[in-house]
């Protein structure tokens, strides 16, 4: 429907049988005449049909590819059958991962400076679990390893690419300031806020303070 020549059922079969997110390149190998940008509307069309027929899964666009994934509604029943499948991320792991994701490439010392705690164990665990990898070494004494995120990170967090990361929130919207801070101290903070926030304060909703914990 979205593309004249594209067999949606065949595309669905291709993505279904792929052993990871099916890349645009692999889809193009199967459909050489595909117009650029035709995959996304085609997948949307397949997803609309899946939803209409009440299927418990859909095609998600992750890590520069397309993959069948169950809908969140069925997490409980899947985990009940195989509890060991559940991905476990401690808060330390999440914070470190967030830092690496937004600030890569960066060294362990930089991670520790930002988090204020020793991060050796958590970085090692993230390396072992293939969420981060060594992307290079800084040309500095000791040649410290620089870390970056992996494809597995994108797949786990359902991101198409690193550019898909949610924009960082501004500090002002995260910390409850009792009154409008117009004094000298506040102005000292502004340059930092500009540097770390990608988005103008469009989202000025109060920060959600509820803590997320997984164990």
């Amino acid at each position, binding site marked *: 429907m979205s593309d004249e020549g594209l067999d949606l059922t065949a595309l669905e079969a291709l993505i279904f049988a792929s*052993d990871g997110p099916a890349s645009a390149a692999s889809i193009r190998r199967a459909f050489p005449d595909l117009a650029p940008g035709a995959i996304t509307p085609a997948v949307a069309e397949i997803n609309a049909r899946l939803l209409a027929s009440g299927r418990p899964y859909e095609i998600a666009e992750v890590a520069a590819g397309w993959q069948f994934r169950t809908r969140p509604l069925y997490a409980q029943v899947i985990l009940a059958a195989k509890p060991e499948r559940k991905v476990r991320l401690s808060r*330390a792991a999440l914070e470190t991962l967030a830092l690496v994701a937004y600030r890569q490439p960066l060294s362990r010392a930089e991670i520790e400076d*930002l*988090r204020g705690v020793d991060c050796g164990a958590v970085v090692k665990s993230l390396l072992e679990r293939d969420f981060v*990898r060594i992307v290079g070494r800084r040309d500095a004494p000791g040649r410290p390893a620089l870390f970056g995120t992996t494809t597995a990170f994108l797949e786990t967090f359902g991101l198409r690419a690193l550019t898909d990361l949610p924009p960082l929130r501004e500090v002002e919207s995260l910390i409850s300031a009792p009154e409008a801070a117009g004094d000298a101290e506040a102005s000292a903070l502004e340059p930092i806020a500009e540097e770390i926030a990608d988005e103008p304060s469009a989202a000025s909703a109060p920060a959600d303070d509820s803590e*997320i914990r997984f164990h």
Partner: protein
Amino acid sequence: MEPAASREEVTVGRNSCAVKLPAFEGPLDLLLHLIRANEVDIADIPIAVISEQYLAYLELMRMLDIDVAADYLLMAATLAHIKSRMLLPPDPDILADDEGADPRAELARRLAEYAVFKHAAETLARRPLLNRDVFAAQIDASALPDKEGVLTVSLFGLLEAMQGVLARIPAAEVRHTVSRVRITLQQAMIEVMDRLRAADGATVLFEDLFLAYGEPTRERVVLTFLSILELAKIQALLIFQNATLDAQPTGPIRVRLAVESAPDEAAIEHAAAVAEAEFTTGVEVDEDIELDFDPEHDREAGEDDDVG
């Protein structure tokens, strides 16, 4: 949070595992919690109040036998330092400078930055996570046709591929120049590992491992080949090749990182040292012997030696 008053309660509670303390991810997290609990501005922290509560929390941790990490103590010292600087009259020379004017500025900057990433982590965690909220079909890797380990490459296949790489080197100078090794085996091994890591778990063509490093000189190719063999020996990488139905190896040789047993740099260094000692002496070296091996020395010696 009055330590003296809550002491007994805490002790009793601990024995019955009833005490529930919010877990903090470090001193910055604890400070952020105190700032929010006191509803104060991050840029205008009442240092006296906050550091008092901070120390009280540390005392509580100590009573609960929670290991107070050095990071927490360092922050306590920082707070005390800021507090003492706040008591001093402002230095007129640095008053003009915004950053230097307030001793709390650096702490406020770190807290602000930490708050941003803490929130980013929470936002990421709320996404539908693979293997927590959403699930993809699992494929049994052992069912895939090119299962590694079973279909290993033949020695002849490897040598053939090596010949292919060597054949591509322009056979220019047949002059017999004696050149020293410009890179060490250890460096070559690390380069191969870096190349495989960059592939992010995917396989890399055997031939491609030789293309990555500038002009392919014979010594460079030999070193890279040795690196691959040495890394295979310590099981840092896997070498494999498809097979025909009658189990004849066919197609290109592929290499990838062995996920299960990623060696650290010390293991690579050790393997390289052992191998280099073997090559130079021509004798099998007992791996337990401490080796006097200095890659730095070799490299420096090679650098000032130009062949052309």
